[in-house]
């Protein structure tokens, strides 16, 4: 059991590193593409037509993966007033909050997959790609958030999602 937990946590670390790497690449491309748009418009006077659409889709990816990494770090905004004032309710509320959150994420995952499938026969406006590559960010993000949430539960079942795991 203990060995299983340790394995789960090391997988979690590994996934988090991959997410951080993906965010670096995405933010870098996002900056480069948008800056290229500014340069081509104001300096070369020959604006790119595809840069804005590409930047928007990269932004959807950054947002979903960033939100996933934030689940791991306990970085999402929330009200911890009650938890701080009444520590006694913690063990009861932790699991309840986790279950409702997981339910929402499952729906986001399911509807994200549906949208992605629907978008697979739809082309982007200015890019030579199908829209499924943009929509795919939703199920991937929701899946990663569910994964980190599950690790929270394995790590300490009574723990609250607002607090980052302590090693």
């Amino acid at each position, binding site marked *: 059991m203990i060995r299983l937990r340790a394995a789960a946590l090391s997988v979690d670390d590994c996934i988090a590193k991959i997410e951080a790497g993906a965010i670096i690449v995405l933010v870098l491309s996002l900056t480069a593409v948008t800056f290229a748009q*500014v340069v081509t418009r104001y300096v070369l006077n020959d604006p790119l037509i595809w840069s804005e659409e590409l930047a928007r889709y990269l932004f959807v990816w950054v947002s979903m993966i960033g939100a996933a990494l934030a689940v791991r770090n306990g970085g999402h905004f929330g009200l911890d007033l009650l938890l701080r004032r009444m520590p006694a309710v913690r063990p009861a509320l932790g699991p309840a909050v986790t279950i409702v959150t997981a339910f929402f994420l499952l729906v986001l995952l399911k509807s994200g997959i549906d949208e992605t499938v629907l978008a697979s026969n739809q082309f982007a406006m200015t890019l030579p790609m199908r829209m499924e590559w943009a929509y795919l960010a939703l199920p991937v993000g929701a899946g990663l958030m569910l994964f980190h949430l599950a690790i929270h539960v394995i790590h300490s079942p009574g723990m609250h999602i607002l607090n980052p795991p302590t090693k």
Partner: protein
Amino acid sequence: MTASLALFLAFVIAGMPIAFALGAAALVGLWLLEGAPLRIVASRTFGAIDNFSLLAIPFFILAGELMETGGISHRLVTLARVLVGHVRGGLGNVVLVAMLFFSGISGSTNADAAAVGSVMLPAMKREGYNAGHAGAIVAAAAGMGILVPPCLTMVVYGSITNTSIATLFAAGFLPALVMTAALMLHLRFDALRLGVKSEPRVPWRERGKAVLAAFWALLLPVIIFGGILGGVFTPTEAAVVAVIYAIIIGMMVYREITPSYLLRAFVRTGVTSGVVMLLIGSANIFAWLMTVSGVPAALAAAIVASGAGKPLFMMLSILVFLPLFALLDGLPGMLMIMPVFVPIAQQLGIDLVHYGIVMTTVMGVSLFLPPVGVGLYIVLGLSGATLGETSRYLLPYLATMTAVAAVIAFLPWLVYLVPYLFGLYTPR
């Protein structure tokens, strides 16, 4: 609709992150609304994030991360000190002016509080300020700083209400200066009462030196606002130019940004943007539900029919926003209340630029409102003073700031003047 709202409140009180609480509560509403397809969840989330205006958010966050290195904070604070350190009220005025500079670079109020606070609080304590008093001044100044563009709150408000973000930015300038003047006056009274010393006047030669040292940092807001107000850049484009500028200055001129610092800044930017965007996505599902339910429209009609005019509604807005934004960390509170309050404001004929600036002003107060404001806890962490000790000094400042918010609510030309001068606003 009512069920969703009640559930949302229950989830939030139970400590569920607000983004998930909004989404989960909306799901229940969708389920009750038979025939509403679940696809709405994904399509509304995607639709909210897939927006070029909101792309300004990660860029302004990143530019702020890159400009808030120790060296730049020190240079801007030194500049503020030689400019206004001698004015009665002493270091308090320095904090305010440094915050004006800083907020002009960064779009995040919490980051401003941390950057200016980490330099000024030790200096103020050395000069004999009580830690609670010093923290209160930093908190009040950071609350003022939210009005100085670039401001993430304005980006979000503008993109959701379809109000020009450039106009909102321009509209924030004069209220920021009025707020600064009001707080300086307040500090002056404090100085007379508490016997706070001012610093000796600094010769012009030294002021010139401080300006030169801070020159590259100060050029950034000039580029951003020159570009946006002159109609050259969209706010998103100005934000990306700010990022590139910050990278060049940080790596080549001030030499404080190392490649590994840059990579960490990228990751932090991605995570912060993710948190904000997921929130905007879930709020968009919730907003859809509200609109479909027809409750906001009915409420708006009822308020208009009741004969309550603009002034009453403005007062009501301020009274509702103040505690709500404090409890829900600012932005989430705003996203939640907008689908209800903005249609009413429109029905009453309140200009949405004016309404947005009033909302932003109140948020500056709320973020530091004891005992829950998130910004306040950042300042407490830096000052080491207790909540009670800081609140004793802070509450009078927050009262002054709320009074200024009311003044802005009743004198709309304070908001319109600058946008009008730059041709971004035409009076009706």
